């Protein structure tokens, strides 16, 4: 054998095997996530689709499976998302504008605020639930009502909205601000007419993703007193339940049919979630700015 041909050969059989094994391991990690998700989805769809009908969407829960729906829970979830949108977006964007445009980042208290907001995003949701019970339900005397649930979800996702809005605002190049100031615009005019319009796609995307997180939350709602059995339409200041809680309640009933109704309710929840995420992605792609 010539030495040239020898040089072209793999260094050792071991090297090649290690490469193949490593690649296989990576593929396996990927598969674990995807297969699990796929099986779950398939299982939910197989069981739930036959029960995904008008009864589920229009009827309140009932003791008999044929009559049982999830209308109060679906409505309450939609109401809460609406309130959440009205509370979390203005507060979150306002905070983000202050921190990015007004706060002097060299001051220690602004850095402390900054650090705390990032920490808040990592606080377990049950802790927010306890806070809601103590301050909203008892302290403010709101009682176990839908508004209390919506407000606690607001606090829960506020840090996420602030962080994403800040990133969107930071992505607006400084040259745009300077161009505005150089024309004799005030800080308010620069923010309102230049920075915010450019940041809106990013802010909208972040807000929708935060809402999508809130929609699946169960623990804090249970703590502020969401009931598991509500047969009437929710009101702002009345008792309420939410879709994830309704699903939990149906699954824990003894009759098998209710587990199938739960599967159908899961499909509704997933559909709302996926619609919101798809809308966020569409917004991002449609209005993404290239500088």
């Amino acid at each position, binding site marked *: 054998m010539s030495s040239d041909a020898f040089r072209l050969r793999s260094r050792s059989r071991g090297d090649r095997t290690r490469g193949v094994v490593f690649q296989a391991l990576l593929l396996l990690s990927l598969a674990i996530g995807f297969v699990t998700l796929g099986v779950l989805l398939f299982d939910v769809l197989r069981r739930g689709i036959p029960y995904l009908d008008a009864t589920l969407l229009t009827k309140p829960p009932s003791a008999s499976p044929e009559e049982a729906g999830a209308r109060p829970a679906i409505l309450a979830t939609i109401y809460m998302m609406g309130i959440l949108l009205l509370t979390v977006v203005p507060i979150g964007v306002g905070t983000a504008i202050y921190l990015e445009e007004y706060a*002097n980042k*060299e001051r220690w208290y602004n850095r402390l605020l900054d650090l705390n907001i990032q920490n808040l995003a990592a606080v377990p949701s049950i802790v927010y639930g306890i806070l809601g019970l103590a301050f909203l339900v008892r302290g403010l005397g709101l009682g176990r009502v839908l508004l209390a649930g919506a407000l606690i979800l607001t606090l829960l996702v506020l840090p996420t909205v602030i962080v994403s809005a800040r990133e969107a605002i930071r992505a607006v*190049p400084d*040259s*745009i*601000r*300077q*161009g*505005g*100031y*150089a*024309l*004799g*615009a*005030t800080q308010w*005019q620069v923010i309102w*007419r*230049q920075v915010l319009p*450019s940041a809106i796609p990013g802010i909208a995307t972040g807000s929708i993703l935060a809402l999508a997180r809130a929609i699946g939350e169960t623990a804090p709602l249970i703590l502020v007193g969401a009931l598991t059995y509500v047969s009437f339409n929710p009101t702002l200041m009345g008792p309420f339940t939410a879709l994830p809680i309704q699903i939990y309640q149906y699954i824990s009933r003894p009759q098998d049919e209710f587990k199938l109704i739960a599967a159908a309710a899961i499909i509704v929840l997933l559909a709302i979630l996926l619609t919101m995420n798809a809308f966020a992605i569409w917004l991002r792609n449609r209005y993404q*700015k*290239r*500088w």
Partner: protein
Amino acid sequence: MTEMDSTATPPRMAEVHVETAVGPKDSELSRREVVFDVQGLEVLYAGVPALTGVSLKIHKNAVTAFIGPSGCGKSTFIRCFNRMNDLIPSACVEGTILYHGADLYGSEVDPVEVRKLIGMVFQKPNPFPKSIFDNIAFGPRVLGWNKGLAERVEQALRRAALWDEVKDRLKESALSLSGGQQQRLCIARALSVEPEVILMDEPASALDPISTHRIEDLMDELKQQYTIVIVTHNMQQAARVADMTAFFSVEVDEDDGRRTGILVEYDLTQKIFTKPGDQRTEDYVTGRFG
């Protein structure tokens, strides 16, 4: 704006550099009205001086160029005239700049009004991500000049020699223009609020030679109506467009190695480039340094 007594200011640094900070003597320019009278200006970033001891006068309807090597503080200096340094929290401006005799940094002066009267064009074209029309209309709109907006936009674009190229596409995004057109758009935008002075911070450094040439021609025309101050890296450009040229340099502190910008020489452009009064200027303009 407050009228301020110019003798009341203590130009500590001005005295040190007084012999270098001369203006033109016995020339037609020197008899023109003074727009800016800078006395002992010092700019500090977080307490560290970036530029120190600058005194000079800028005359009306002339192009004044600031040249010098990187880090000599010429961009820092030009940003003092429209108080853009106010936007940097750590920046601090000391000394005096008189604008038609009034202290630009007086306590009753609103920097927003200053920036309306003293426009600025930046190194990199920075059109807003809006239509061509809305880019020009932004300035008048924030000032509440909503009457005759279309005429105002047209006039600004005509003055910036851009009207013929964009008159049929005013609704298109300003980002669709070429780099040179974008920079002329930014000049038109600055003109739209009827400033008296236009500051240009290396306005052609990101442009190709043809676009650069058009901007230079434009400066020549604009100085009939406006007072122009330009920072440039390009010495030929200063020689071509400027009536007056100030040469800045860097002084390195022997003890701590700190670099501070200083004004070396300020005179008629022709003099700076043909018979400079300072060896450092001569070294720079002849290409031996920088």
